[in-house]
């Protein structure tokens, strides 16, 4: 069995976002790039599954759509433990475009389980996993909070309102993972970093597909009015404000 983990290359969560002068794009100078946090947890879980499978899961591949500049992020994923990496060599213009590129790769190179994180922390799309599944006519399980490997099957816990469902699916399947999938991301060890340099990183040419959306401009959120302080001795005032001023109680 093989697992493909889709990786997005995003600015570190603590990055201060600045816009370029024309407001048409985000200024990425000096940004620290990382594996999208959800994808990092997905990779961590994939590694755990492989280690516990007694050899039944024999390969974990990470894939991303991006130009050469994203390779350090793929190398980091290799250092964490992925067996090989694939980069589709093009600018990831929108979710539809990215999903279509990965789907084309999967048509040539099938995997039993494909994992994507619920959302990328840059453009907050939440869409690549579901789109990919639809392109492949494969089942997709969203809101997955745990994956286990039992017998020869992947068993997923899917979060629903007030609880969860236990779900299995035909392969290939796409799992869109969220909170709970792994507690902490695995940090690459020195040995992993050394080995990562020698692991295969395959570069694939993109297929011709049209992106269907585009960001036309950006703006910064309006500064929030400063917090209104209430005296700790006068908590009644807080409830008066919530009722009369904010009108939320």
């Amino acid at each position, binding site marked *: 069995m093989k697992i493909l983990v889709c990786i997005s290359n995003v600015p570190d969560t603590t990055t201060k*976002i600045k*816009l370029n002068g024309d407001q048409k794009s985000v200024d990425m100078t000096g940004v620290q790039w990382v594996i999208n946090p959800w994808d990092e947890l997905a990779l961590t879980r994939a590694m755990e599954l492989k280690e516990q499978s007694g050899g039944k899961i024999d390969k974990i591949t990470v894939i991303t759509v991006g130009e050469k500049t994203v390779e350090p992020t793929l190398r980091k994923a290799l250092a964490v433990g992925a067996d090989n990496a694939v980069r589709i060599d093009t600018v990831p213009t*929108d979710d539809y475009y990215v999903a279509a590129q990965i789907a084309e790769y999967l048509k040539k190179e099938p995997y039993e389980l494909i994992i994507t994180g619920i959302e990328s922390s840059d453009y*907050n*799309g939440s869409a690549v996993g579901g789109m990919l599944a639809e392109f492949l006519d494969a089942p997709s399980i969203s809101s997955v909070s745990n994956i286990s490997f039992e017998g020869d099957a992947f068993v997923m816990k899917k979060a629903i309102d*007030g609880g969860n469902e236990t779900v299995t699916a*035909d392969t290939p399947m796409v799992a869109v993972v969220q909170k709970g999938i792994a507690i902490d991301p695995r940090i690459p060890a020195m040995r992993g970093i050394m080995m990562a340099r020698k692991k295969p990183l395959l570069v694939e040419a993109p297929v011709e597909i049209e992106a269907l959306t585009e960001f036309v401009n950006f703006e910064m959120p309006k500064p929030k009015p400063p917090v209104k302080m209430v005296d700790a001795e006068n908590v009644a005032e807080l409830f008066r404000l919530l009722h009369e001023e904010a009108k939320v*109680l």
Partner: protein
Amino acid sequence: MSVLVYTENWDGKFKKSSFELVSYAHAMSGQAGGEAIALTIGEVANEELEKLAQYGATKVLSIVGDAYKEMDAALYAQAVAAAAQANGCEIVLMANNNEGKGIAPRVAVKLKAGLVSGATALAQSFDPFVVRKNVFNGKAIGYQQIKSANKVVTLAQNSFEIMENPVAFVAEIFDADAAESKTNVSAVDKVTDKLLLTDAEIVVSGGRGMKSGDNWGPLEELANVLGAATACSRPVSDEGWRSHEEHVGQTGKIIAPDVYFALGISGAIQHIAGVSSSKVIVAVNTDPEAPVFEAADYGIIGDLKTVLPRMVEEAKAFKANS
């Protein structure tokens, strides 16, 4: 241009978020010179369906049948796409919640439609079709254009005021011709009597400043008095003081209540990312420099040991008078 709005139902009932969606669909179809047509999957009584007409849905389609007992995203997406096509809707709208995130991307591929996830306003323009959404977890706002003829939009919670727009409506059964499911649900584990965190209009949340898992009594009492759900920050669930189910933040649940009480929560950026869509944030913290006060609308500097019991008393007094 008509709008097909997918309104999820919960055991045959709609929620506030369903009415928010239909209000938005009505306003958007008005902008576009079309109608708002609602679609729901599963058995819903007629008087419940009629509620959607109160917010502007001129037609309500229902899909029923055993094939749809479990939410299989592939089948649901197929049904939504078929209903949109059969009714000439170029825009498909749904909530940016668990179910919407599962279905919308598949619908987009089926209809070869561009997708905007988490729209926060009506379309800024129709030609070109441009919608506003938050990007970088709310640190910036992006205007995303959909270039395809068909369009799929998911609406972020609490982004649109519910507006009554009573219209005459027709209810119809829609047959979506379900394919064979490729997923199998073997067990369901669900608590039904508890107020869901993601539904709650008021949320009372505790952080490390609560000092210990044993100190949650007054926080729960405050929640109880206000009819609120309880939540916590990541360190609290990591410590095992509260269940992981209650963790809100970037890597936990994303919530958007009317009021969020952050008690003893310092307000790390990852935490704020999960609650920043709340209408009002109230913070109580001993540290006047805590970053939570930058995100909060109202703040109290003080020790929870004394402030929290006062809040319980004042909440009771407030409830008694209202």
